[in-house]
């Protein structure tokens, strides 16, 4: 039984090797533009990215672009504007699984303007 379990674990590890990039940003009236490079080899199974943003004030936009600069599906943006000109918190959560058609350096882009809040992300490149 132990042998079978070991075999299954070893098989699982061989089948899906994931390279993970994790990060957390605390925004305090921050204005920033950051691109996190994600190296994608030919034959990569998928890029999984999970993003959680809580925004008390300001604007945040998240996007994923392929090596040609084309936006992949799954980006989002948040702002705290109200119709009356005030601010109300916003929240965004994203769990996306992109099958990369183009190998090369993909970019996970984060833009913030006068933003206060928290930003957590995790990107996994899953090899076959």
């Amino acid at each position, binding site marked *: 039984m132990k042998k079978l379990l070991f075999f299954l674990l070893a098989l699982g590890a061989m089948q899906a090797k994931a390279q993970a990039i994790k990060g957390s940003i605390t925004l305090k009236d921050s204005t920033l533009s950051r691109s996190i490079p994600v190296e994608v080899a030919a034959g990569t199974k998928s890029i999984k990215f999970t993003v959680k943003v809580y925004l008390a004030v300001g604007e945040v936009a998240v996007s994923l672009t392929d090596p040609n600069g084309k936006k992949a*599906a799954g980006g*989002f943006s*948040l*702002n705290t504007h109200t119709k009356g000109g005030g601010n*109300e918190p*916003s929240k*965004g959560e994203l*769990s996306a699984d992109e099958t990369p058609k183009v190998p090369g350096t993909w970019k996970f882009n984060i833009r913030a303007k006068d933003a206060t809040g928290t930003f957590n992300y995790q990107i996994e490149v899953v090899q076959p």
Partner: protein
Amino acid sequence: MRRHNLLLGLLLLIPVYGNGQQARLSGKISLDTGWARKFYVSRLPGFDQMFTASRALIIAEGDLDSAGNFSVDFSAGKDESLYRLHFIRKGDPASTLIIGSRDVNHVFFIAKDGDQIHFNKKQDLPIRQSDIGGSRANSELNTLLKLTDDDTTGNNTFISVADRSTSQLAGLLAISHTAGLTDEQNEKVRRVLSRYDQHYAYGANIFREYSNSNEWKLYLTGGILLFFALLLYGYRFYRQRSILKTWRELSQREMDIVGLILSGKSNKEVALALSIELSTVKTHVNNIYAKLGVSNRKDLDRYQELIKSNVANR
């Protein structure tokens, strides 16, 4: 009596205009205890705001009843607009967007004045785009959004959806998903767009893009034509200068002989006209041919216009 009827008619009209242009959204949802019993409707002014969470976009909100039923009237124009219905978990801000997980919290829909939109989420399943309906535009939107989730959907499929869509908004959204079109695909999109209302706000960027690509082609064609016109003018100018330079190398006697040849005289007639020997005319003619770089009278004809005008100028 007539005045009373008029007053009554006006009074009957008040509720119609008083309500303005509205649509109605109603539905039912079963949510577990982790979710707030609230719903929100956002109006999305452009396709690039489909995944924007902002309090400023929310135009209507309400409470779910104990059975999960809800209903709201919201302002809707005579043209179709894009909306988003969303729910939130307890403790989350009103403008919360959850994308891509089992907790996905929203669906998109199209509505215009007088539409009745229906939402019905199946129990124990996540919220799905197909949960919303109530008009042909929304069926088209649901089909399109399913295609956009599929990485293998290509330009031709999006163009075909745009071509078949009765909803201009769904058609424009389909076109907005195309990229790197071939000339043939561009032409198809242009044909589809020619049927659309060019003042429709959702298509502003698309109409501008395709009108720019037309202008770009027009400028390119104009530029190429201008280039060739200048090239032709330059060539003719160079040729004329070169011929005139050669012409000036001829002696007065040779110029006279060319003039007579161009007037149609034979060598013998030229000899008679100038009272010189035929052999002398032949020698002059050979020299003229050599200087002008021609080999017979027919070639000389090619320069007739230029030489004639030059003879006149002299």
